[in-house]
């Protein structure tokens, strides 16, 4: 039985560019899939294919039990989409925006009005409800956009880089909103460039590069493949390097690498902060002075490096997924 979001062999080319090169996905109902990858990897194109905005050249997609190519209108009734840009009308107020979207979801006018008020409350926008969205901050616009995607309690949600461009505080706040949503049973596909975000929100992560899913798994599984966490120590005196290396090797899960000129030692570990504390204590006991010490978690670059051998080309193909010059075959 396919999941709430299911894709098989999605291919989409724009001229010479193979934006999607056979994407397979299967997201069980009520779970969150994080689609992780750099700009131009095919994240947005995947979302556009699954939300009926774009017709793939080949492949099959089922969303909420409905064939995306055969029953696009029924799919549209069952999904909420929050795109890469906060798609709100800036001259309408928050309330007017939500009412309009409700009516276009074919709600009665009164019902749309009631639902708008409810969402404004839920997204902490009540105070700004009757101001044009133009006066909203970036975080408020994002929340309004998300609220618009939730007007009909869709069982399946798509969010394309929901926190890109937000400051850390607003990002945290939005994560809270998304978690709440998911705890209500919504199936969510979320794209992101940040491993931390996928880590935080997703049950499962699919890493995309050059239009293909190159790795799939929980964040722990991916990190294990990437080499997991590392402890980095910078000692004050160069002559302490051998002793320090001895200590790190004793605690670590592999070879300690030593950079003489920076006086830096790195060792892969499992055991997190607790182990870090033990290492610090041991180094201290042996009288080794440290300039810097820390636990380093794998980043998107680390994941990419270990999976593909190249660093995520963030920005290299920026905009490739949003160009307006492509001939796109839609689902009609």
């Amino acid at each position: 039985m396919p999941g709430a979001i299911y894709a098989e062999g999605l291919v989409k080319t724009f001229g010479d560019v193979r934006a999607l090169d056979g994407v397979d996905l299967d997201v069980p109902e009520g779970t969150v899939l994080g689609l992780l990858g750099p700009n131009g990897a095919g994240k947005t194109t995947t979302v556009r294919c699954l939300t009926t905005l774009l017709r793939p050249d080949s492949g099959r997609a089922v969303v909420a039990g409905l064939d995306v190519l055969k029953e696009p209108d029924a799919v549209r009734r069952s999904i909420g989409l929050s795109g890469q840009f906060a798609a709100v009308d800036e001259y309408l107020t928050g309330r007017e925006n939500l009412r309009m979207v409700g009516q276009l979801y074919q709600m009665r006018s009164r019902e749309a009005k009631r639902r708008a008020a409810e969402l404004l409350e839920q997204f902490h926008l009540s105070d700004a409800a009757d101001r044009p969205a133009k006066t909203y901050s970036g975080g408020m616009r994002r929340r309004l956009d998300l609220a618009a995607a939730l007007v009909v309690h869709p069982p399946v949600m798509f969010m394309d880089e929901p926190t890109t461009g937000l400051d850390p505080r607003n990002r945290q706040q939005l994560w809270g909103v998304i978690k709440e949503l998911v705890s209500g049973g919504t199936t969510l596909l979320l794209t992101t460039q940040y491993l931390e975000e996928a880590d935080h929100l997703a049950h499962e992560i699919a890493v995309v590069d050059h239009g293909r899913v190159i790795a799939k798994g929980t964040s722990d599984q991916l990190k294990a493949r990437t080499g997991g966490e590392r402890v980095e120590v910078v000692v004050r005196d160069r002559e302490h390097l051998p002793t320090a290396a001895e200590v790190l090797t004793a605690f670590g899960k592999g070879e300690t690498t030593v950079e003489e000129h920076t006086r830096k030692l790195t060792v892969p570990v499992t055991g997190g902060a607790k182990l870090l504390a033990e290492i610090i204590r041991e180094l201290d006991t042996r009288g080794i002075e440290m300039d810097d010490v820390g636990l380093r978690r794998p980043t998107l670059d680390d994941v990419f490096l270990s999976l593909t051998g190249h660093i995520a080309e963030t920005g290299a193909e920026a905009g490739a997924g949003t160009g307006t010059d492509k001939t796109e075959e839609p689902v009609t």
Partner: protein
Amino acid sequence: MSAVVQSPPGAAPGGALVRSVRDSLVIARRNVVRMARIPEVLIFGLIQPIMFVVLFSYVFGGSINVPGAGLSPSGYREFLMAGIFAQTVTFATAGAGAGIADDMHKGLVDRFRSLPMSRGAVLTGRTLADLVQTALTLVVLAVVAVIVGWRTHENLGKVLAGFGLLLLLGYAFSWIGALIGLSVRTPEAATSGGLIWLFPLTFISNAFVPSDNMPTFLRVIAEWNPFSATVQACRELFGNLPAGYPTPSAWPMQHPVLASLLWSVVIVLLFRTLAVRKYRRAAG
């Protein structure tokens, strides 16, 4: 897993046609609200035609010989107004184009296309809102025209019919604008792309001078120009044709009301079809 083809709670009833009309009105309302919140668009949209009324009336008025009216500024003023009115309504093209290009640019078209709404409604709603704007513009312009001395000489029904043809022409041209808006990348391009061809179109016509004195090939274009048909029809319906004005023998000039209606309907049907098709394929 449950196949969730649920109607949203409180779903409105109705078939495809009802839905299409309802969605179009929701979008039209949205655009009218926007218009009210950005009044400068309407105001700037008025300045140019008012300037044209004043400039053409007073600068050219004494020098342009309208057959049948002779060299009289007041005769030219009556002759001119239908032309200015018609030119003004065609400027709706730029508004519709820029509005739709802006929606594409801001990702709103993607949002609309992901909703279970009628496929033509975003464009129909926009063109309906432009019709409201065109009507407001025409009212103001008619008042200015009366102030500078324009008068009608037919009954109210005919005069209103003339304005009806003008509105229909404006509506038709806003569909051309919709197609332009969907085809370009920025609102700025839609504005200039919507205006640039309007100048030759409206000048190679009978709008500002009688077409008789043009070189033959321009005269033929002018006489078959959809724009000229509406201008000629309005002059007839307003009673603004001087008694001895020689009507050109081309069919649209002989039957201007019918020609104007046909042209406008053909433009709506053609450009609506093209624009809706383009919308379905729109890239965000």
